[in-house]
């Protein structure tokens, strides 16, 4: 017998099903408000459906009315009424409670392209545009297959050079959107390996996206958040098509094409490339994937090398930074394996586990070892004939080092051990790593690596920049977990004991007879514990992405040391260099900037803090040894940027382009410069108006109501900016942002490290983040409104019950 579901329950089922589908069948970005309105539409449809027929309506109503009226439902009725009344109360609470959820930004990932674009003084019809490089190859394929492949390979090779000197900082070595600057960006750079990206697109779409960059996006693509440069300003047409050809080649995908014949030929070419690559040996893999940075002969001199700091490893000199073999022994094969497989965080070396099998990595380890010219893996009794003129060992019995640095006697992490470690640190490490571990070289020495390139001591307060040492950034878990901490400390211990070869970091454990440890066993563990503890006051990037101002009673501080600042939570953001617009910067040193915000009725104050190893005041005596000889020293500087009051909105979100705004959306830049000793110049503030990526910033004649103060100490700048929350009517500053409570305000940052040659367009920056001065919690509203709503609904329910029971048809006392 068929079970018939009563009409009311049918409606409930449909509603629940609709809610579940909306929640789970769509990408997790469906906003709550949209879900609620869709559900209401479904509900309205259901009511319409059931009320359109008298019979159905009665059936639908009957269980509801019965519950409200009948005597035998009393037990169900009253709890139900309470629950039903609580629901709208909760909805009201949800709406009025203070929210820190930032405005929703729904970005179209593949916005629709325009019909045509104008670049290179030509008009390109995007509907019909095809990649001329690929078309030429396909034409050749008909006549001369060999020549066709030759020109294809040439285009890919040229495209690869374009990619590795322009794109890979963000889109990554493996085209997965994880370049070394990517973590500073939001949205993240496109992952070309994802089959949902370029494999779905025509090459003309890529041509549009590349040549016109972020500013060429329609509003739905949120151009204001994009760091994608306008490449037609920096690359010629041929280079753009070559790099497009390279992208598809690298990820083994074919573009979407209209002509089935052409599409088939392109797929065939792709298949043959894929099958050839499947059987590559270590040497071929090296030349295809590694040589672009490490060089064809392993000397760390590939075409991408000059854009990188740290530079790619030179494999020829037997100097390996991150190894676990003791002393000056060559690294273990496992060390090289781990470096290839896991990569080196804080550098441009990615982990290759997705692209290479373990067996391929094993082969690569042998390839890398064979580049050595210092005989570190040659057997001791190897004769001269076993080496070539450059010193490469030619036989296949290269040594495998098995000795491992002993990890024994770990001293548990404790305040006591940290205090002991601090003493040892001050004696042995402070001169390079600085008083507070920020790598600020209290010795004032100019450090070089063994190749003669400048090198800086690690900032021990920023673990996310550490390589092969901080486990939480190396596939580990939460850095605050005990196990993670112990593992990280063991790695610090290894660095202390073994040293970092090829750099000024020395070893501290004796490995030879007749020597004593530079720091004894316990001391090395204490100092490792201390080095770990230096992160204690660090806010990691991403921990608090909305900057929340704190309301302050009374005057806002005038100094960077004021105790008030300690009560304000800090937000930290990653900096990335200006790679967007010429002149570009590729090798920044400062990595992150932190901000705290205080405000009162009249004013708002920002404290910017950023670690900078050098106080760059041109002509200053303190750091006279530190400047690079080939780099002019400039003044350190820092800036905040806000849209003009009328140049942004939060619903829907609209902002100026994050680099200097655009023609329709202007910004104001609050700039502070540290000044110089020679020529004598005090530190100073300037207000700039920015009106777009191609127009010069214009400084205002006066800084008016902007108060600034800066101080450098122990490897850190702290710079205070203070200004009225709104400009006076009719003043020079009219039109600048007004800092209102409850309003989400876009803000971005920039920093110039003068000692690193940073000046004008050469600087680091962040994209937009949100600043919020939270509303005070109005307890009457937050709790009163929901309570009143619930009470109202309950009252209405009671009245309804009373009314229904009174109107009950005669003879229906029992309700049976």
């Amino acid at each position, binding site marked *: 017998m068929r079970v018939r579901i009563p009409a009311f329950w049918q409606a409930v089922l449909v509603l629940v099903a609709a809610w579940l589908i909306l929640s789970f069948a769509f990408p997790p970005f469906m906003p709550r408000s949209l879900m609620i309105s869709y559900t209401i539409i479904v509900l309205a449809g259901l009511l319409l459906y059931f009320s359109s027929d008298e019979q159905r309506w009665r059936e639908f109503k009957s269980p509801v009315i019965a519950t409200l009226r009948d005597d035998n439902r009393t037990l169900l009725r009253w709890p139900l009424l309470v629950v039903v009344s609580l629901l709208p109360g909760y909805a009201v609470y949800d709406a009025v409670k203070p929210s820190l959820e930032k405005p929703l930004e729904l970005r179209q990932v593949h916005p629709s392209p325009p019909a045509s674009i104008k670049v290179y003084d030509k008009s390109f019809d995007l509907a019909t545009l095809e990649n001329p490089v690929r078309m030429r190859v396909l034409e050749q394929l008909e006549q001369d297959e060999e020549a066709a492949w030759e020109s294809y390979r040439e285009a890919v090779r040229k495209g690869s050079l374009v990619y590795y000197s322009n794109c890979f900082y963000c889109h990554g070595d493996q085209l997965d959107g994880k370049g070394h600057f990517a973590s500073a960006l939001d949205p993240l750079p496109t992952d070309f390996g994802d089959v949902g990206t370029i494999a779905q697109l025509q090459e003309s779409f890529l041509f549009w996206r590349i040549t016109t960059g972020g500013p060429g996006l329609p509003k739905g693509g949120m151009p204001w958040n994009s760091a994608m440069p306008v490449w037609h300003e920096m690359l010629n047409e041929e280079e753009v098509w070559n790099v497009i050809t390279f992208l598809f080649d690298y990820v083994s995908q074919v573009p979407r094409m209209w002509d089935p014949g052409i599409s088939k030929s392109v797929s065939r070419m792709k298949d043959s490339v894929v099958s050839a690559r499947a059987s590559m040996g270590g040497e071929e893999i090296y030349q295809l994937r590694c040589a672009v940075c490490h060089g064809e002969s392993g000397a760390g001199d590939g075409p991408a090398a000059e854009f990188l700091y740290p530079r790619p490893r030179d494999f020829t000199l037997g100097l390996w930074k991150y190894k676990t073999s003791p002393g000056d022994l060559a690294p273990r094969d496992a060390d090289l394996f781990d470096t290839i497989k896991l990569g080196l965080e804080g550098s441009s070396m990615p982990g290759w586990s997705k692209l290479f099998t373990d067996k391929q990595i094993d082969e690569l380890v042998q390839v890398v070892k064979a580049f050595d010219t210092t005989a*570190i893996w040659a057997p001791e009794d190897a004769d001269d004939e076993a080496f*070539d003129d450059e010193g490469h060992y030619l036989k296949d019995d290269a040594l495998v080092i098995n000795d491992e640095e002993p990890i024994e006697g770990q001293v548990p992490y404790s305040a006591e051990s940290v205090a002991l470690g601090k003493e040892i640190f001050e004696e042995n490490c402070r001169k390079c790593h600085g008083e507070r571990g920020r790598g600020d070289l209290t010795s004032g*020495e100019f450090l070089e690596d063994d190749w003669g*390139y400048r090198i800086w001591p690690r900032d021990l307060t920023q673990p996310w920049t550490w390589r092969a040492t901080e486990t939480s950034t190396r596939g580990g878990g939460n850095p605050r977990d005990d196990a993670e901490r112990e593992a990280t400390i063991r790695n610090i211990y290894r660095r202390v004991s073994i040293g970092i070869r090829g750099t000024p970091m020395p070893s501290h454990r004796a490995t030879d007879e007749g*020597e004593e440890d530079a720091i004894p066993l316990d001391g090395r563990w204490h100092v490792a514990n201390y080095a770990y503890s230096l992160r204690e006051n660090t806010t990691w990037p991403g921990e608090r992405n909305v900057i929340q101002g704190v309301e302050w009673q009374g005057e806002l501080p005038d100094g960077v040391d004021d105790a008030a600042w300690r009560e304000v939570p800090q937000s930290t953001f990653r900096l990335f260099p200006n790679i967007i617009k010429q002149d570009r910067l590729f090798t920044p040193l400062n990595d992150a900037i932190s901000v705290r915000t205080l405000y009162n009725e009249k004013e708002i104050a920002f404290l910017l803090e950023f670690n900078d190893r050098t106080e760059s005041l041109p002509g200053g005596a303190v750091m006279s040894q530190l400047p*690079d000889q080939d780099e002019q020293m400039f003044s350190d500087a820092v800036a905040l940027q806000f849209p003009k009051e009328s140049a942004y909105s939060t619903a829907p979100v609209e902002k100026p382009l994050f680099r200097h705004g655009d023609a329709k959306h202007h910004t104001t830049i609050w700039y502070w410069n540290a000044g110089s000793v020679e020529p004598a110049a005090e530190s100073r503030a300037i207000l700039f108006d920015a009106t777009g990526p191609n127009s010069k910033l214009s400084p205002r004649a006066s800084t008016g109501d902007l108060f600034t103060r800066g101080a450098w100490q122990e490897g850190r700048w702290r710079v205070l900016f203070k200004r009225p929350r709104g400009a006076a009517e009719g003043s020079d500053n009219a039109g600048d942002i007004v800092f209102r409570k409850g309003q989400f305000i876009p803000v971005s940052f920039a920093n110039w490290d003068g000692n690193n040659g940073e000046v004008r367009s050469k600087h680091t920056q962040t994209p937009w983040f949100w600043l919020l001065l939270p509303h005070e919690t109005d307890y009457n509203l937050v709790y009163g409104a929901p309570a009143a709503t619930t009470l109202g609904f309950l009252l209405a329910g009671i009245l309804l019950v009373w009314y229904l029971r009174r109107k009950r048809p005669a003879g229906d006392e029992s309700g049976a």
Partner: protein
Amino acid sequence: MKTLRILIPVLGCLLAFAAAPASAAKYKVASVSDGGSISGRVTLNGAAPAPEILKVDEDVEACGGDRPSDELLVSANGGVQNVILRIEKIAAGKDWDMPAAEFTFDQKKCAFTPRIMVIKPKMAGVVLNSDSVGHNFHTISKGVFNINKKIQPGSKLAVSNKKIRKTGMVKAKCDIHSWMGGAWWVADNPYTVLSDKDGNFTLTNVPPGKYSIAIWHEKLGESKQQVEVGAGADTKMDVVLKL
């Protein structure tokens, strides 16, 4: 020194002199009959420049104050000290006649002593620290001897005879006290000498023949001179280094 800092990679410079190709046949000891000698004096092609004053701004108490650089040492009569002269590519000849004992390389008043030394291959030795402050003893070479070790006051670094693996240049520095500089030349043949404090040198018991003499000075770089040695004769070879 700091103002003259050159950013060309250090290794690039030193390798020109340092790289005795690994495949070059090893020097063989053979009896030398009718051996001649090469002797002479190293001078400058001009007046000796006043030495640069090195600024000592770290551990001043232990190191002593600012000091003139000892990189270019010129005697009152114009002789240049610490110049390495050696016969290039000589396959066989006299027995090793350098001091057989261990070498000692000290760090005193934050300076390397001796500043320049010539040692035999596979020679053992010791690096001392006679100062009251620690040094980061850091060598740079092309696989000859690479180490970077903290040496505490009064402590030492033992260099066993297995550690020095090849012949060629080893530059020494301390990353805490950047004014400290020094170098070892690990000789590939016994016809390798260091000029004395008056700039004099002698290469003895040289088989008769034509030779190329490589001349190296830490600051003035490398040059070469050709010389012909007659049987049993002393050949004069004066060297004028260009400033």
